């Protein structure tokens, strides 16, 4: 009856009963075997690594090929005087010439009329 009790106890912990069966009356059953391991449950949130640095600890080097974008020549220099000013000057010179022609007419006319 005692044997049966030990055997039952051994069976309950999931281990081999070989030693108990050979032990005969009154000896302590020895539990042998490998521990049962259970798989860890899957994480419910993504695992993220932290603690890194964005700064490379070694110099980045390398070469590559590609076409460069042409930048063209330097922009043309601005004119010394704006086109508007030149147009204005020409108009003023034309007006001055007209006025002087009128003066010539006036002076010629004044000689024969007062």
């Amino acid at each position, binding site marked *: 009856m005692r044997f049966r009790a030990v055997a039952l106890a051994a069976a309950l912990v999931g281990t081999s009963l070989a030693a108990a069966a050979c032990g005969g009356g009154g000896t302590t059953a020895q539990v042998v075997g490998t521990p049962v391991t259970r798989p860890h449950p899957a994480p419910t949130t993504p695992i993220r690594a932290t603690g890194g640095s964005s700064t490379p600890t070694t110099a980045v080097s390398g070469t590559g090929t590609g076409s460069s974008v042409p930048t063209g020549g330097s922009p043309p220099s601005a*004119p010394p*005087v704006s086109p508007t000013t030149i147009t204005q000057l020409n108009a003023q010179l034309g007006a001055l010439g007209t006025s*002087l022609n009128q*003066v010539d007419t006036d002076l010629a006319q004044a000689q024969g009329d007062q």
Partner: protein
Amino acid sequence: MNAHIRHRVTTLALAAATLATMGVGLAAAGPATAATSVTSRPGCTPATVATAQQALEAALQSRVTELASLTTDVQNATGLTATDRATVSGTLSTTSSGIQSLVGEAPSAATCLAVWQEAKSMVQNYRVFAVVAPQTHLDIAADTADGIETTLAGQEPNIQSAITASGKDGVNTTAAQASFADLQSQVTAAQGLTSGVPATVLAQTPASYPGSSPVFVSARNALRSGFADLKQADADLQAIVADLK
């Protein structure tokens, strides 16, 4: 000579000839000859005074037309300074009022003496053709020249900066620099010729005649020379622009 001027000259010639024939000649209106003319009016008789009166009205009308033309010229003259515009406009307004007054009186000039007195006032008091017209156009011309000189002188720093910048860009600016030096010289010369013209011509009055005539001729000559200088300065500017392209 345009049609307007031809018409005016013809009208005036007829008026002068008619009045002169009648001893009421416009030339007789001068201070030195007035007394002689008054006493030598053999052609003006009661039978011919109507013709003389019509000639007077034509002469007055030619002045009304001239004054209207001058007023338009002043209104269109963008180069006039505000001060000179006010002065010239005032002269034109006063002269027009006086001539219009004579226009209203002329039909009532029923005698040779009355016609002569009207003609004398028309000429001596107002001198529309001998003083007012050249004075107006000379002042417009002088102020216009002053405006051109101011514009060119104001651009000189910009021009020099553009030449300097082009030189730094590797452009050969030797010719541009020479043109710029000439431009400055021409503008300075023009300023010296024209700066005093407005005050001189505006100081002339009908009473200044005949001394006003050589003053006007001198002013015209100075403005002509200044005009030539400014045209050369403009040519220099065009050359600089072309050189720096």
